[in-house]
């Protein structure tokens, strides 16, 4: 039996699909929107009463955080390390400066301050004790977990539902397939005889796909400047901040799709590729043996990593 649930959470459309022999699993699917609501109450910067907002206003003083917050904080620091600082929770004020003050789909452009280009703070300025769950933000520093929170939520959902069968979690286009830490398996590998088919959307024609992937585990995430963008005067702004400049990334990549063993890595790698641009971005992807990518450039051309072919799905 295949059952699926769809709802909106964390500013995105969420879809969870469960391939299970157990009819009772549908009851558990009913609980998923509630899980996301709880996580959002901890992690959203758009809610003034969220735990994240409380931690942000406490900058300058140490405070203890919940286990959920601690888990995402850890994930966020790991992602920052993996990406060499390109994906960091310290971009909060740069996002505000760029006008990203309210969440989608109810987004309205906030006041855009004249873009002074300066790097965002490094995560090393955050004092974080994982054992006591105590955090200290320097005065004035505010955090935004961004895609890490959504990826973490997708991963948690997959972990909770996996006892019922095979699970796919699509959190606004970032897709988690099964166990965390699994190697990405294709249909030709062990345990990979019944793959999920994941289409890669064409950023210029959203109803069309530029590629179809066959995957049994791991994750796929796409990051891009084709959505969550807004106009400031004559210039387009978007939500992907380059931490090196503190302003929206100036890049020739309009969307980057990455296959990785986990959704957090996939999401961070996709964002990093956008920030770095097609040349440096693809070199960076190729330097990681467990990553594969499709980059769509502003000029309409496509670049794929050397090992992507083994995930391509050809309809027989």
């Amino acid at each position: 039996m295949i059952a699926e649930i769809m709802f909106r959470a964390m500013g995105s459309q969420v879809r969870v699909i469960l391939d299970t022999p157990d009819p009772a699993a549908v009851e558990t699917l009913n609980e998923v929107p509630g899980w996301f609501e709880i996580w959002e109450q901890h992690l959203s910067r758009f809610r003034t009463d969220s735990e994240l907002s409380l931690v942000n206003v406490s900058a300058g003083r140490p405070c203890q955080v919940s286990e959920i917050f601690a888990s995402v904080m850890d994930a966020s620091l790991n992602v920052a390390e993996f990406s060499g600082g390109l994906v960091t929770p310290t971009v909060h004020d740069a996002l505000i400066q760029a006008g990203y003050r309210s969440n989608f789909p109810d987004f309205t452009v906030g006041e855009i301050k004249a873009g002074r280009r300066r790097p965002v703070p490094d995560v090393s300025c955050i004092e974080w004790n994982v054992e006591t769950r105590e955090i200290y933000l320097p005065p004035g520093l505010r955090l935004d977990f961004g895609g890490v929170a959504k990826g973490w939520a997708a991963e948690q959902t997959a972990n909770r539902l996996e006892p019922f069968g095979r699970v796919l979690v699509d959190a606004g286009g970032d897709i988690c397939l099964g166990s965390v830490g699994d190697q990405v398996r294709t249909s030709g590998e062990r345990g990979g005889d019944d793959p999920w088919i994941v289409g890669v959307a064409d950023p210029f024609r959203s109803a069309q796909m530029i590629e179809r992937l066959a995957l049994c585990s791991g994750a796929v995430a796409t990051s891009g400047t084709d959505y969550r963008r807004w106009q400031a005067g004559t210039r387009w702004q978007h939500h992907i901040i380059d931490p090196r400049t503190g302003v929206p990334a100036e890049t020739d990549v309009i969307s980057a799709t990455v296959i990785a063993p986990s959704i957090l890595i996939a999401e961070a790698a996709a964002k990093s590729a956008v920030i770095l641009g097609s040349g440096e971005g693809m070199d960076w992807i190729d330097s990681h043996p467990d990553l594969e990518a499709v980059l769509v450039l502003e000029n309409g051309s496509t670049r794929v990593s050397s090992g992507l072919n083994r995930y391509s799905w050809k309809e027989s």
Partner: protein
Amino acid sequence: MARTSSRRDKPQLGTMKWLISISSIAATLGFWYVFSEQVESELDPIVNPGQARNVVEATFVPDRQREALSAQPDVSKFSSTEPPPVPTPFRIIVHDANQPKPTVVTHSSR
């Protein structure tokens, strides 16, 4: 000349007395107005919200801000008691066993 002067001084003196009297009355009324407004605002800010807001902003808000700044965030509500889930509209579909798995699409976050 003296008489002429005298005739001219009399009206001037009278005018000055009038002016002094009016000024005194105005000053007295002004003083009482300002004083009563201040007392009213301090004793019962609700009586005149517009005036009270000015007074409050000038005198009490900094204290409140200091209290707010010195207070620790209430993270206990997150660590011990999770907030109740707010009902979220959702849709569940159960597919036929013979149907192939649905295709999903990856795209930039939306």
